[in-house]
């Protein structure tokens, strides 16, 4: 079981290495979205600081949903997914490997690039650190929840937008507490612990239920 898990994980990472540009695409999408907002809303420093947590989180949400579209689509189109359904391993484990690979390739880079975005919005150092740590806890939740949406919309026309539609509302709790933590850290004097606890609770719940729900959705979609 562990072997199949590692095999799937390794394959997905290998595929990404074959097309390294894929990883950068998501990163740059994030950076571009973050960077074009000021062109629309204006360059006032105080205002930018105030909206920064929201903008950065929404950009992360969007980048993560967009990347999701691909998580199963290729496997479905070329028949690999069918083969995964026909293995003697529990499907949940293979799915978990795929989600993990996906997060490593899209979520983690977002966390690492976030300081750049913070710079553009004039956030100070400690706020930037908070931003990174909530993103680190929050983005896996996004991947997990998003995977369910991706599995459900598999092979449907208009997949990309459709996933966003299903999944974005589900992301709202993460968005609210994620952005809330950053805003709180910016104000100072507020304990951040409750935010971290809540986000970690989301993560745990997602870890337990999401692979299983995704596997079930996949079975439905492939039929």
């Amino acid at each position, binding site marked *: 079981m562990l072997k199949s898990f590692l095999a799937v994980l390794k394959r997905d990472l290998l595929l990404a290495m074959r*097309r*390294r*540009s*894929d990883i*950068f*695409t998501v990163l*740059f999408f994030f*950076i*571009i979205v973050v*960077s074009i907002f*000021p*062109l629309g809303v204006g*360059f006032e420093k105080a205002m930018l600081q105030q909206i920064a947590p929201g903008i950065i989180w929404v950009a992360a949400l969007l980048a993560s949903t967009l990347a999701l579209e691909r998580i199963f689509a290729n496997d479905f189109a070329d028949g690999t997914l069918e083969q995964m359904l026909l293995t003697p391993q529990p499907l949940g484990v293979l799915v978990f490997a795929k989600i993990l690979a996906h997060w490593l390739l899209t979520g983690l880079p977002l966390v690492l690039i976030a300081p750049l975005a913070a*710079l*553009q919005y*004039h956030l100070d150092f400690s706020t930037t650190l908070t931003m990174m740590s909530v993103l680190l806890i929050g983005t896996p939740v996004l991947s997990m929840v998003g995977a369910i949406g991706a599995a459900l919309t598999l092979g449907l026309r208009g997949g990309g937008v459709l996933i966003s539609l299903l999944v974005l509302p589900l992301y709202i709790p993460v968005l609210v507490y994620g952005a809330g933590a950053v805003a709180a850290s910016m104000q100072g004097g507020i304990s951040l612990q409750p935010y971290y606890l809540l986000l970690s609770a989301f993560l745990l719940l997602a870890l337990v239920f999401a692979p299983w729900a995704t596997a079930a959705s996949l079975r439905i979609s492939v039929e």
Partner: protein
Amino acid sequence: MTINWFKYSSPASFYPLAGKLIPVFMVLAIVLTLGGLYWGFFQTPDVLSDQKQYYRIIFVHIASAWMAMWLYVVMVFWAVLGLIFNTRLSYMFACATAVTGAIMTALSLWTGAFWGQTSWGTWWDWDPRMTTQLILLFLYMGYIALHSAIDDNRRADRASAVLAMVGLAIVPVIYYSINCPDPNACASLHQESSMERIETNIFIAIMTTVAGFWMYCFAVILMRTRNIILQRERKSSWVARLEALK
């Protein structure tokens, strides 16, 4: 006597020529860049009082910022030439230029950020020139991303050439729009270049460094072009013969 330019438009005859040119450009690059920096660091103490020593970032900042912009034009030039004459070599040039251009853009942003932190106390501001530079980086990245997302070299070359062309057509519009987001106020817009009021020593240092950067870019682009040639033509007979000579 006329020079047969087309002779050098084939990779086979260009490859050895480039090999000869690279050291020349490299040496020029080192001499000019270091010379310019020397001038800037050691021949301008009277101009730069102790408080404004950060001003020395300008030498590399301006050089990289200029190269970033020029290389985009150069890249589009080669790409368009490729689309028109369907010469393999010019696509390879375009492709080689893009990476160096992106690096130069990144450098100008980086040095600019450090400058900003010292002089304005902020790493980043949404000043039109800086913003345009950032968008230029996005355009380079778009070109590179598209090229590397396509396996087939022929399709990759032509597709990214079209992209570069569209990009160049829109860049002035982008620059204009960022520069004067309010068209009502544009009539009064007069961006003067600070180059005119500059002290002679600094001017010399800047210009020498810029020349050095040009030479560096020539050298690096030629090197990358040679690599691309080898990579793409590894199966062809002239490459095999070339190595037999060595």
